[in-house]
């Protein structure tokens, strides 16, 4: 069931120049959510952000009814959200979309780039709760763009790449040594990030009999299947990324890779 709820900002933690993490208090018991699902956040007081902004559920704590959003400032809407203070109200329509599905084997690799790392923390926690120890591969431009590595390290092994080599292995995620071994140490890839990165991973997975679940960030107007603005071509024709996705099996998408 979808909800429309005013959350209260508990903390606004600045991570880097670009990223903040909002911790939001739900007024009652949180409904259950699936990793990969997102919220449509109303941006109050922004001149030019008219529509809600889709943001992944970054983390959930059912014990104290809080959720976290990881926000990258890219435009006016996200800049206004990044200025919220503790005590402010934030209106969310959530939980939306179809999230990640649990794998058939325990050997999972979670790959994130940019703000695409957001859903992977909740996903990693979900795996740990189901007795699976995940591996994370996180890519960034520079060391300064890598966010919350400590939080991921608490859940599993973390591998890092940066384009300038200032942290971890130099290059893109696909260049990391764990992607180079003859027999990969994982059977499933879960990824969220720039399309170019996800396409490379989908191709890699496709040629090795590995499954690859990707999370798309198409522009949305409603977020719950009412407007048909957010479609992506699939083997079954146009599908809404907000309802049938944002997570899709890469083989289901009509991607030129």
């Amino acid at each position, binding site marked *: *069931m*979808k*909800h*429309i709820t005013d959350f209260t900002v508990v903390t606004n933690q600045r991570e880097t120049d670009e990223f903040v993490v909002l911790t939001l208090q739900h007024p009652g018991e949180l409904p259950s959510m699936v990793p990969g699902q997102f919220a449509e956040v*109303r941006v109050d007081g922004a001149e*030019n*952000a*008219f*529509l*809600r902004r889709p943001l992944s559920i970054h983390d959930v704590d059912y014990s104290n009814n809080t959720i976290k959003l990881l926000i990258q400032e890219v435009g006016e809407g996200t800049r206004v959200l990044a200025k919220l203070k503790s005590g402010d109200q934030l209106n969310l*329509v959530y939980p939306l979309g179809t999230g990640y599905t649990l794998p058939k084997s325990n050997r999972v690799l979670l790959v994130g780039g940019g703000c695409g790392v957001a859903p992977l923390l909740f996903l990693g926690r979900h795996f740990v709760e189901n007795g699976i120890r995940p591996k994370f591969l996180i890519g960034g431009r520079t060391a300064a763009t890598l966010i919350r590595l400590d939080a991921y390290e608490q859940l599993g092994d973390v591998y890092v790449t940066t384009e300038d080599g200032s942290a971890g292995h130099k290059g893109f995620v696909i260049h990391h040594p764990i992607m180079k071994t003859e027999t990969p140490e994982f059977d499933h890839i879960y990824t969220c990030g720039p399309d170019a990165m996800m396409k490379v991973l989908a191709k890699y997975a496709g040629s090795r009999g590995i499954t690859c679940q990707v999370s798309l960030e*198409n*522009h*949305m*107007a*409603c*977020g*719950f*299947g*009412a*407007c*048909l*603005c*957010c*479609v*992506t*071509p699939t083997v079954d*024709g*146009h599908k809404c990324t907000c309802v049938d996705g944002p997570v899709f099996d890469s083989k289901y998408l009509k991607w030129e890779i």
Partner: protein
Amino acid sequence: MGNLKVQLGELTLSNPVMTASGTFGYGEEYADFVDINTLGGIVVKGTTLHAREGNAYPRMAETAKGMLNAVGLQNKGVDGFINEIYPRIKNFKTNILVNVSGSTVEEYIETAEKINELDAIPGIELNISCPNVKEGGMAFGTSCPSAIAVANAVRRVYKKHLMVKLSPNVTDITEIAKGVEGAGADSVSLINTLLGMAIDVNSRKPVLSTITGGLSGPCIKPVALRMVWQVAQAVNVPVVGMGGIASTEDAIEFLLAGASAIQIGTANFIDPTITIKVINGIREYLEINQMDDVKQLTGALITR
């Protein structure tokens, strides 16, 4: 308590608040947020004779207080509607109108004939004003003879409430309104989206895959209101007003301009409960102004 019930010809609405086609899915998408049965009516997504995939992504661009869309009538076709969707929604206790579109007069006729057979559908909204398809659609609604031709043809085969949705992308909307009234429309609804465009200066490309698209939301309200006012004076059939309605005040403005009922579109995306708020708001407005019937508001504009 003031009466909210309104009549559109034979069609009785429990209140004047309806939802606009293409923004409310088939109602089900909003069932978690509002009790669909409390709405005056819902107009479901544009339906064509054959299934359509719609236009390529990107289909949406946010604009100042509004948005452009170029969905292009993606739908499962009338048979898909009848077999898959209708069984799921036919028990809603509100007026469900099907928005009918086509590329040829024959397609409109065949689609309307099929929908005429559905007991739980008391009317259609004839869409002769979609700016997002290459042939047909808006082309019918922007020339008076073709608007009359398609309304006439559908009137002959469609026995229930025939609402005709007008395009604002014309020189004189009252001419078309009078034309379709003469062809037998039971009501007219307006406005559909205004043809617009957005450009990404970084890539120097149009934002939409179709280059142009339909503008909706609060930014179009003044234009919509003016057209509703003009049309209400030109025709005798009821007028259903829409375009940028996002609050009770907006809705009442349309009623005062001459609308008997209103539709809410884009505002549902930002507040999925807006319809209920507007219904309650109209009720309060009547109370505060000591009016006992919402019909007293229709056309009650004081011009001097």
